[in-house]
């Protein structure tokens, strides 16, 4: 089968389209013919070696497709089932092998592109507002990168809960998208100081929660824009990893809470995974959650997809079609 492989970590060019053997399922695994693979920032971290895995490897954590083979012990999926997944390395390929518990059914009302686009980002936005910090009506949330993959879904979900949303973006184009997603206030941080703006927008009190996938570039100011006993949920690091944090700062800035989260811990059981995917697919099917697909590339153009992702001019999901 055709697959993208990384033999040495590095820039986007290290991803090469190659012919490899179709994987065989172990007893508790299934093989899925990939219809669509999702591109995520984390793929770049494995590709550039920031996150380690054995070499050579096939990148990609997310996708949608049809089950083509099942191992002897598999009970929850059957050949022919439409499924989607996140957290399964090897998705930038025509077929991927996965433990059965990672595969979730895709409802008929959801297209493959929507399912692939919604898994990582949708599940992330969902766990952020339901569990990482359980957002309540009337609270104010600061959402960074509000026009981005997770950001645009976060804005929609937060508004659906009845929270007030302040979004930050890097350009006027993205500001428009963030407003379309429902953000009550949008700050173009390249033109305004988001710290001063958030203070102004909250009468100096600050927000209850900051949802941040940006990391380094926003960290210090984030500590200054939260209200007493507010919560900073760090779920990504698109601008780089945050430098080591002095806990004394958390108390100085108002007995703040901080979490550094990752999707795996919020989909650790099949029960939790299915509850979240049902919720997200349900919202999409009802028209309540719009997933913007920015661009679709042939599998061979994975390097260009990564270049585009890292240039951060894209607002929306990038997909690869094997």
């Amino acid at each position, binding site marked *: 089968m055709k697959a993208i492989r990384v033999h040495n970590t590095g820039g986007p060019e290290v991803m090469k389209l190659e012919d490899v053997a179709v994987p065989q399922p172990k007893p508790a695994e299934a093989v899925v013919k990939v219809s669509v693979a999702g591109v995520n920032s984390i793929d770049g971290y494995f590709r550039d070696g920031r996150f380690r895995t054995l070499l050579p490897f096939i990148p990609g954590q997310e996708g949608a497709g049809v089950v083509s083979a099942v191992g002897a012990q598999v009970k929850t999926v059957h050949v022919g089932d439409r499924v989607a997944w996140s957290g399964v390395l090897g998705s930038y390929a025509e077929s991927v092998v996965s433990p059965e518990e990672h595969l979730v059914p895709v409802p008929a009302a959801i297209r493959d592109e929507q399912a692939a686009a919604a898994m990582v980002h949708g599940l992330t936005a969902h766990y952020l507002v339901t569990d990482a910090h359980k957002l309540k009506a009337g609270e104010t949330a600061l959402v960074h990168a509000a026009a981005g993959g997770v950001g645009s879904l976060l804005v929609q979900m937060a508004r659906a809960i009845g929270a007030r949303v302040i979004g930050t973006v890097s350009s006027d184009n993205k500001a428009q998208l963030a407003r379309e997603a429902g953000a009550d206030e949008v700050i173009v941080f390249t033109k305004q100081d988001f710290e001063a703006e958030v203070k102004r927008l909250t009468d100096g009190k600050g927000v209850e929660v900051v949802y941040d996938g940006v990391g380094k570039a926003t960290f210090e100011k984030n500590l200054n824009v939260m209200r007493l006993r507010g919560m900073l949920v760090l779920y990504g690091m698109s601008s780089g*990893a945050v430098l*080591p*944090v002095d806990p004394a700062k*958390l108390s100085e800035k108002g007995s703040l809470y901080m979490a*550094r989260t990752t999707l795996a811990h919020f989909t650790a059981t099949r029960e939790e995974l299915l509850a979240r995917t049902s919720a997200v697919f349900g919202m999409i099917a009802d028209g309540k959650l719009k997933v913007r697909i920015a661009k679709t590339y042939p599998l061979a153009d994975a390097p260009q997809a990564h270049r585009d992702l890292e240039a951060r001019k894209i607002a929306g999901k990038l997909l690869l079609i094997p």
Partner: protein
Amino acid sequence: MKAIQVKQVGGPEAMEFVELPVSQPKANEAVVKLAASGVNFIDVYFREGRYKAPLPLIPGSEGAGVVTAVGADVTSLKAGERVAWAGVQGSYAEYISAPADRLVTIPPGVTDQQAAAVMLQGMTAHYLSHDTFPLKKGQTALVHAAAGGVGLLLVQMAHNVGARVIATVSSDEKAKLARAAGADEIILYTQQDFEAETKRITGGRGVDVVYDSVGKTTFEKGLNILRPRGMMVLFGGSSGAVPPFDLIALSQKGSLYVTRPSLFNYIATREELVARSSDLFSMIKAGKLKLRIEHLYPLAEAQQAHRDLEGRKTTGKLLLLP
């Protein structure tokens, strides 16, 4: 009046027993004649300069006594009333001038010594277990220094709510006290590795929350014993301040929360101060919270009180009697 004064930061000997004028109350203040002053670890941090304050300084931030005079704007208190406080600097003295809105009335049935003993550590244990991480029946908490001032109160409150308590202590004598306070499991951390023991006790699952006043020597291991999405509540640093830590560790170790609360932020409004202290006084009167007031020193012997506290020989509360 007699008072303890620190002119230059240093060890216990930096505290001098001096004669000072009694200050007149400002318009919003009341003057209180102290019956007892509570000794707390935070007094050590100010005395040694770890926490900064203008010098010369009268240490001590907790006490109880009788109002002797009120400022022109004070209508809520009058001379003769019994009051208590935490967070008002200058308590190692015969008299203190304090903002009236920081003084709470001591109800009948609670003695001056009980009030002085419970304000700071009791409200700390209260906010930790009721607000920072509201403990629920069935949850498991690890409490370090469980036989210390806050420790014994926190263990009792956790036990009262039906949480399972794993207590760490440094001696058999302290183990007995922690058990009597309601701890379910005791770890003598001087003989056992609390990380390995906690993992064994919880069948590898870990605890829901770690309440850590020890800091430097316990923080990292504490992160290792939390269950996924558990919380590290760092509320002190008796072994030293926790150095800056890497956030990625929090996500790798289970998408953990960290907070570094301080009492001030949990009694920021008078409403909250009154609610917390009232709760404490009710618990004492109902016999649900037992105070261990073991160590009484004349005000003149403040140095010895600090030596004993820092020598980790004490259990429960130390009081200075003017």
